[in-house]
């Protein structure tokens, strides 16, 4: 093993890989779950169209969660145990939600006619439950798993905030993948969820430095603040431009239909970078750093070799799949 890939560098690389997986999951399954929640507002025909926009992708999107949690498990086993035991109940509820949502993809069209509507509601309820519990866990994580009502209140607010953000990215995805009446409705959904997302992001950005003096120091100590200023400024500018752009949607020309979605993705990336900067080098806030939690370098090295070969291939065939199902979504059919 080269000295470059030692016990110091490897945990860093794996923290980065895990962060990328979680970010990919939040964006990709985020739009799936958002579409699932928004289905509450559609009739059966609209729901079919909404499912058709995510049908070919959701399974691979959800795999990023398995990779993210898998990397936590294999690269930082100690943190995995601590985090998942602290989040035992919300994890169980999230899994219930993901289970209902995942099987409802199939059951909502294959079950006996009288049950199909139930599965639609399982789809909507499952998507909502998964999004809320993920936001709740994010809130607990930001608060460092502290006890007390402040933590609970913050976590509940984070639950609503992440659900709003998922609805926003889901609505922008629908703008890109649909046209006509459904697209007009999606534009409406995207406007108010954009506002809700903005409020939550501001709330989290204010709360995080307040709960942790260490994070406060990282952001507001003197030279840092200058270098970091672009992150909140860019985020603010992005919110405003998205608002203005969405005001002018839908357009007769469809060439810019994916712009709101790309804007939403950029918001997620900026928000994620902000959080990552706040918590680095901790993997369990204020308790465990990535080096304290890491597995043996030999094992990390073996995984890294495989990942370096396989991840580009995964990226390639994922791109291929998005290329095959490019443009406006068409009816899902097997033949």
């Amino acid at each position: 093993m080269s000295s470059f890939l030692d016990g110091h560098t490897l945990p860093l690389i794996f923290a980065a890989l895990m962060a990328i997986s979680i970010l990919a999951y939040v964006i990709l399954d985020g739009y799936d779950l958002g579409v699932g929640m928004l289905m509450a507002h559609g009739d059966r025909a609209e729901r079919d169209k909404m499912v058709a926009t995510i049908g070919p992708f959701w399974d691979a999107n959800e795999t990023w969660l398995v990779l993210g949690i898998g990397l936590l498990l294999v690269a930082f086993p100690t943190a995995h145990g601590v985090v998942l035991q602290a989040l035992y109940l919300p994890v169980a509820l999230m899994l219930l939600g993901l289970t209902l949502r995942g099987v409802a993809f199939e059951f909502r069209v294959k079950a006996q006619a009288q049950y199909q509507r139930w599965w639609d509601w399982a789809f909507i309820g499952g998507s909502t439950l998964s999004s809320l519990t993920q936001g709740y866990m994010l809130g607990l994580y930001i608060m460092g798993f502290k006890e007390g009502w402040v933590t609970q209140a913050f976590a509940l607010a984070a639950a609503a905030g992440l659900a709003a953000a998922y609805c926003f990215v889901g609505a922008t995805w629908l703008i890109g993948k649909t046209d006509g009446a459904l697209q007009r409705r999606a534009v409406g959904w995207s406007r108010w969820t954009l506002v809700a997302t903005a409020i939550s992001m501001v709330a989290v950005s204010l709360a995080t430095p307040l709960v942790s003096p260490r994070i406060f120091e990282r952001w507001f100590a003197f030279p840092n603040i200058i270098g970091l200023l672009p992150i909140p400024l860019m985020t603010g500018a992005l919110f405003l431009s998205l608002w203005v752009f969405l005001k002018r949607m839908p357009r007769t020309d469809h060439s810019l239909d994916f712009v709101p979605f790309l804007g939403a993705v950029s918001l997620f990336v900026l928000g994620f970078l902000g959080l990552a900067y706040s918590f680095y080098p901790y993997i369990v806030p204020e308790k465990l750093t990535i080096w304290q939690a890491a597995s043996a370098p030999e094992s990390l090295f073996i995984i890294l070799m495989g990942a370096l070969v396989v991840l580009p291939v995964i990226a390639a065939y994922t791109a291929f799949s998005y290329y095959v199902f490019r443009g406006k979504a068409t009816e899902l059919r097997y033949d």
Partner: protein
Amino acid sequence: MDPILLARIQFGANISFHILFPTITIALGWVLLFFKVAFNRSGNEKWMNAYRFWVKVFALSFALGVVSGITMSFQFGTNWPGFMERVGNIAGPLLAYEVLTAFFLEATFLGIMLFGFRKVPNWMHTLATFLVAFGTTMSAFWILVLNSWMHTPAGFELRDGVAFATDWWAIIFNPSMPYRLAHMLLASGLTCAFLIAGLSAFRWLRQDRGPDVMAALRTGVAIGAVLIPVQIFVGDLHGLNTLQHQPAKVAAMEGNWTTKGHVPLLLFALPNETTRSNDFEIGIPGGASLILKHDFAGVVPGLNDFVAPDGTRLHPPVAPVFFAFRIMVGMGVLMLMVSWLAAWQLWRRGDIGVPLAWVLVGMTFAGWVATLSGWYVTEIGRQPWLVTGVLTTAQAASTVPGGMIAATLAMYLAIYAILIAAYISVLFHLAGKGLKGVASPTGAGVAKGGAPVHPAGATAKDK
């Protein structure tokens, strides 16, 4: 109740629920590829119609496998934090390779396989079908490598109780891996064969006897009839491998308490751990010795050899292993008789006949029973160890309070019961729809511009 027992029941319930669906999809992927290639070569529509029906079953089974698999990836950490802390250096890379080489592959190409028929060239669709089948099989490979390593660990050293890899080749090709992998892949083939034969026989009984139904029926029966003798042979080899590496498990399977020769093959008994003997024993004299040692006088290990001087039991609980083993073997014998009889009937008479068709319907999920009981034999048979000789199940348990485990266990059990009921009823619902005249390749059951597919209205709608 004891939190460790609750955690085991919860994990056992999840993993039992999960294995039902990969057991179907691993082999069904290859059967779909066979249908697709048969269509490509012959141009006969019956193969494509068979593909279209079975791809629905595949999609449904796959979705159930995915969601229960995600639950499992979390339960490793919530239920057994000690597992990754002690053997994570071995288990981690194996699980990572499963995600990287199998999960993304199957999930991505599943989209193209299911919904891409009109969007990609035919060869690409066939390739996507192959890659999905290949992905499910790779997934089975990696997880069985890890499971086998837990039974027969090799290629590592312990430093302060933590396992470190010394030889990845030895870890992957650990002593029980080839047998376990072959045994499981064959189990998948048989489960899939009886599912195909059972649902096709159901369609046949409902007068849905098109060439695609008959082709699927013949395919299912043929796969079952060919694989079952191979499975019995491989199962025997696997048992001999277990005798060598995990004698306590074999002692529990045979219900044999004292190490001796001329051990009978027990057809029935009630193992009694208090008296450390069997009640109501009925057996074939010397049978177990003959099977395990190929000699009536062969010495078979007994459970009493696996008790510590202080009385601590170092062997698995006897009754569950003993009975699960008999259910598995009994199911295997039944599969042998039914599949050969059905093959003979189809070959000689060209048709299945009503009585045998009903038997096949009754055995639609025979593979599930055999697979689950086989897994109970091997997994309960490994107790009290989680990783043989390295880590006990109790050492790996979490500190989550029992009440919390019990509450989530109740939730999981309720949802699994609902999902299994929905799955089975929807399979028969899909199979029964052929009768309504919707066997034509119009993708019945798939979202079609919103109108729900109503059984009564299906005929008119799909014409």
